[in-house]
């Protein structure tokens, strides 16, 4: 027969452990929500005094499956994460135009937030390079560049809006070009960004809309090189 005090002790400890689990889960959710909310509040509209800056957009073309640089002037905020977000939203808004060579539906804010953080030192296995070849030729520009990350190197976590992913055309080429164009544009304007990962609505997703793999870490150098790659 178990002594009464041991039974009481067991019940008390059991209740305490269940309560602590619940509290921990809730704290983790709140921390995640606060992080997302904080990044979303970082404005993309520059103050009126912000000077126009030269921005290079790496614009996708469905017909040739390539990226081409296009320089525009854009007022940009100071803070790097807000800058990255402003540049990407400008890039993606370009695709909804009537003359777009990579047509995407119109949307106000396709990129909800961009987080920049130091490149983790030991995840080489998960990194993959991507590249597109020139039209009608085998692109040999692909292939992982397994360089050792430098201290200044940043990984950009691009958090796409749910609605952007849901309304994106479904297809291997169109989704791949959107991903590559985001990676290459980030690299062109923030050279310290060497790697990119994607979230949709704050969550990890398998694909953009059924095709482009969003579980990978993309290397920006490879996607940028792809635009002018010779086989």
């Amino acid at each position, binding site marked *: 027969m178990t002594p009464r005090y041991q039974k009481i002790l067991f019940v008390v400890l059991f209740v305490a452990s269940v309560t602590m689990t619940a509290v921990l889960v809730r704290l*983790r959710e709140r*921390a995640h929500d606060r992080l997302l909310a904080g990044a979303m509040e970082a404005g993309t509209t520059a103050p009126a005094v912000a000077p126009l800056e030269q921005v290079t957009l790496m614009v996708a073309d*469905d017909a040739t*499956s390539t990226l081409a640089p296009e320089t525009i002037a854009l007022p940009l905020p100071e803070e790097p994460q807000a800058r990255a977000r402003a540049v990407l939203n400008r890039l993606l808004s370009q695709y909804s135009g009537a003359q777009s060579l990579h047509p995407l539906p119109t949307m106000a804010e396709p990129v909800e937030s961009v987080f920049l953080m130091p490149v983790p030192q030991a995840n080489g*296995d*998960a990194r993959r390079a991507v590249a597109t070849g020139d*039209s009608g030729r085998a692109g040999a520009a692909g292939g992982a560049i397994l360089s050792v990350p430098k201290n200044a190197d940043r990984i950009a976590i691009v958090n796409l809006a749910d609605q952007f992913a849901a309304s994106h055309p479904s297809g*291997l080429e*169109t989704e791949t070009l959107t991903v590559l164009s985001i990676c290459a544009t980030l690299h062109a304007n923030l050279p310290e960004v060497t790697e990119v990962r994607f979230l949709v609505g704050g969550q990890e997703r398998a694909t953009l809309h059924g095709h482009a793999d969003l579980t990978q870490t993309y290397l920006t150098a490879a996607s940028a090189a792809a635009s002018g790659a010779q086989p």
Partner: protein
Amino acid sequence: MRNGWRRRTASGARAGVGIALLAAVFLGQSASAAVQADAEAAAKRFVVVLDAAHGGSDPGATLGAVGDEAETLEKNVTLSMSQRLRALLVARGFTVIETRESDVALDEDARATVVNQAQAQACIVLHASEAGSGVHLFVSSLPPMQPQAMVPWKTAQALRVESSLKLGNTLNSAFTSTGRDGESIEPIPVTLGRTTLPGIDSMICPAVAVEIAPLRDKEGKVVSEVTDADYQAHVLNALAAALLVWRSEAGEP
């Protein structure tokens, strides 16, 4: 808070590495007599695997003009193209294996398992899309790797990626060819790209993803929908012709 987030991604990456190692394929050097006999039998056949993308709960893209009678799901188009290409290839003496013969859901690992067990000489993954024009060919972006005892399942395609690029070029030539011996064939515009392809990245065989998109005129207006039977037949005939070239280049068995 930021640290907490980073920790979670880092542990996720570690878990991924662990799974990849657990799933490592053992490519034994010392083949038994039985395995050798199997290999000889396989060498006599020329095996092509056709992988109709999507299926079951994964419909893929919605194809055809919206509200049109021909409006259909990508999973149905890829399955029907796989079945028709199979008929064309069997008539030409190929041994053909389809990853799915009905509307069933298959994950990428299941597809790669079929291909790897078949010891195929080519794998064609079929997609269809409303975006872009002509035919989009995709090869894995994995860097080439020399044969070794242990190959991670998730990147096994690295062993064959150079052959996959050659197969991509052979397909490209067939689509852009205007026909030989006076026969007139309308060339189909082709784009060739490389990216991370979760199914193909695990396949130990020359593999190319073929995405068929509408044919468009210079203004971008659709001339032939992907659901158009004649257009599909044109694409499938070009694929069959390309695989004949691929077989002859490999040394016809």
